């Protein structure tokens, strides 16, 4: 904000005298915020500490040191939870803003060290015996509880990731495609169930007004898991091909309606891209069925991609206009 710009606007009669004074006052007392720098340092510190401790304890198994390390992990976790609990605002089902960055990140540290702790004592002492599902389930419950109790989106995504891992799927953004074997039928079905579950949880949070701001995290992860599982199903199951393509289109339609209602550009983009993949696969498949692969088919495919690209661009431009208009109302 440059004061002279606003002085000019005032001279043109667009803004009032008092507004110019406010602009001047604000730009004169401009503070230099170290907010993001400090947060990043804190975040990296949490990342390093929890990872370092996690490795440290496994590397020192069967030495005297490892119990000390285990104790240290437990102390860090307990200390973090104590601090967060002391500084937290009273619980509410609506959004509770954190006082500052510290409790947010220390809660993250507490949760991560807690998960390490449980995983390690199961590994070393087998406290849950052969009930491995149970050993995975306890951190899950604690994580979900913390996410709601302390109102923390980061811990919520951690809990969702953990839930997915518990069900057998890797859902972190960069690894969802790399580390899952989408040729496994169990995985495809698990993915569909998980995706629907998460979307339902998200919609329910908003509908029942229980931490309504958690909806985006639930629905976002759920949408990606569901779309990817459905596409994998479409590629994999020859005999159910049309069923899966209908399911992709149906899901896309559902998100289209939701996105129009919420003015969400983000969901518009992902539903467009996923259904474009499905559509292109369908077109190529039909072309391959219709004729042998010769130059003519290649030409048709090239024309299809150019044509559909132009078409989708017009579609997105149109959508952008539509959402913007609705947003104004």
């Amino acid at each position, binding site marked *: 904000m440059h004061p002279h710009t606003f002085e000019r606007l005032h001279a043109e009669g667009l803004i009032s005298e008092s507004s110019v004074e406010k602009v001047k006052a604000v730009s004169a007392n401009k503070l230099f*915020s170290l907010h993001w720098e400090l947060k990043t340092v804190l975040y990296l510190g949490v990342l390093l500490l929890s990872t*370092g401790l996690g490795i440290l304890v496994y590397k020192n198994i069967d030495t005297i040191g490892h119990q000390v390390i285990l104790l240290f992990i437990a102390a860090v976790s307990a200390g973090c939870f104590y601090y967060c609990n002391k500084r937290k605002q009273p619980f509410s089902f609506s959004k509770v803003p954190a006082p500052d960055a510290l409790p947010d990140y220390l809660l993250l540290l507490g949760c991560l060290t807690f998960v390490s702790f449980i995983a390690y004592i199961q590994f070393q002492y087998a406290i849950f015996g052969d009930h491995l599902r149970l050993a995975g389930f306890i951190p899950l419950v604690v994580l979900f509880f913390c996410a709601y109790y302390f109102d923390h989106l980061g811990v919520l995504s951690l809990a969702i990731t953990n839930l997915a891992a518990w069900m057998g799927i*890797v859902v972190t953004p960069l690894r969802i495609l790399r580390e899952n074997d989408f040729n496994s039928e169990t*995985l495809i079905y698990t993915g569909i169930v998980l995706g629907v579950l998460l979307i339902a949880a998200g919609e329910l949070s908003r509908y029942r007004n229980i931490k309504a701001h958690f909806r985006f995290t639930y629905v976002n992860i759920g949408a990606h898991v569901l779309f990817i599982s459905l596409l994998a199903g479409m590629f994999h199951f020859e005999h159910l091909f049309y069923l899966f393509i209908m399911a992709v289109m149906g899901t896309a339609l559902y998100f289209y309606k939701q996105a129009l209602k919420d003015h969400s550009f983000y969901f518009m983009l992902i539903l467009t891209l996923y259904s474009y993949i499905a559509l292109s696969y369908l077109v190529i498949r039909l072309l391959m069925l219709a004729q042998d692969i010769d130059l003519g088919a290649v030409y048709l495919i090239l024309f299809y991609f150019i044509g559909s690209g132009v078409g989708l661009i017009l579609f997105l431009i149109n*959508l952008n206009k539509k959402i913007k208009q609705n947003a104004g109302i």
Partner: protein
Amino acid sequence: MLAYKQEWLDNKVLHEEAEEAYKQQCISKEEKERIFQAYPVPFYTPNIYIRIGLFLLTVIIVLFSLGLLGLMFIQLVKESWQGLIIFFGLLTYGALEFMIRETKHHRSGVDDALLWGSISLFLSGCIMALPYNTPFTYCLLVFVVTAYAALRFADTLMSIAAVIALLGCLFYACINMGTAGRIAAPLLLMIASYGIYAWARKWDWKTKWRHYQLCGSIIEITTLLTGYLSVNYLVVREASNEFFDLNLEPGQSIPAAWLFWIFTILIPLAYIAAGIRKKNVILLRTGLVLIAGIVITIKQYHHMAPIELEMTLGGLVMIGIAYILIRYLKTPKHNFTSQEIDNTHLLEKIQGESLVVSETFTVPTTPAPGFNFGGGTGGGGGAQGGW
């Protein structure tokens, strides 16, 4: 010179200022609307997600059009297929100018994709067709073309490419000048980088070159980084090995190693100090990022402790520093604050953050034999994290 209409660019800046003033509650909503009406911006600039979509789709169209064109004309052009790529690059450029002039696209994803597409097609065609194939000529060609594109479209990526290509010219010129040139190369590159930085600091981005302000900041960041990298011990040692056939064994060092060690450690600290003293965000953040450069360089040549112990201690120190500073700056001191000033995009930021959290922290599933239902993340206490 600029492809975009300057008056609208000015109005766009005005809109941003009015928006900020509105968010800081300096002007009322009616006043903001009045400003928007008095200074219209007819550009087509969609929402960021739509922009990403348009970008991807435009890339698809460009690639498949190239395929189509190649299929149709490959019999005709045969040996001179590089010419076809150059021609197609020019065609894409024509489409870019057309989109900007006729449909008023500005940072819409379409113009970004067409710009980057046309420049990279044109350059790769030229480089493959060029009879004088030395790295110096490549750098010179890249510099000329990207500098033109940066001037014409005020594009940040093109500015970065132009600066790096210019430094590349200098580097290859040095190398060709014999031993003296090779020894001087790191220092000359550093001096050139800081020379460009000083130029970018002093340049008149406020009035005549106001539409290039963002390019100016990007050039500052680029040159601060290249200035450090050109005298970083790790880079200099490995690059000397690569380019000058020194054949250093592990443990051997380069001439004047002490000088490069001093630079390696002092430059990031100097950036941070200067950033705090001058309240310059670019210097401060670049310095903070380059702390990683110090750590990586030292770790490469000196083994101090097992990595997990270093991570644990490093993590503790970082949390400690951040803790003390956040507490200390809770009430603003010396015009510094640890609080966030602009609260408007809080929701979006937090949600971006939650994605980062789920990406970088691997939650260990219980590592036990027989637990192989699907592909759960392996145990090891989230050992994926790196520096």
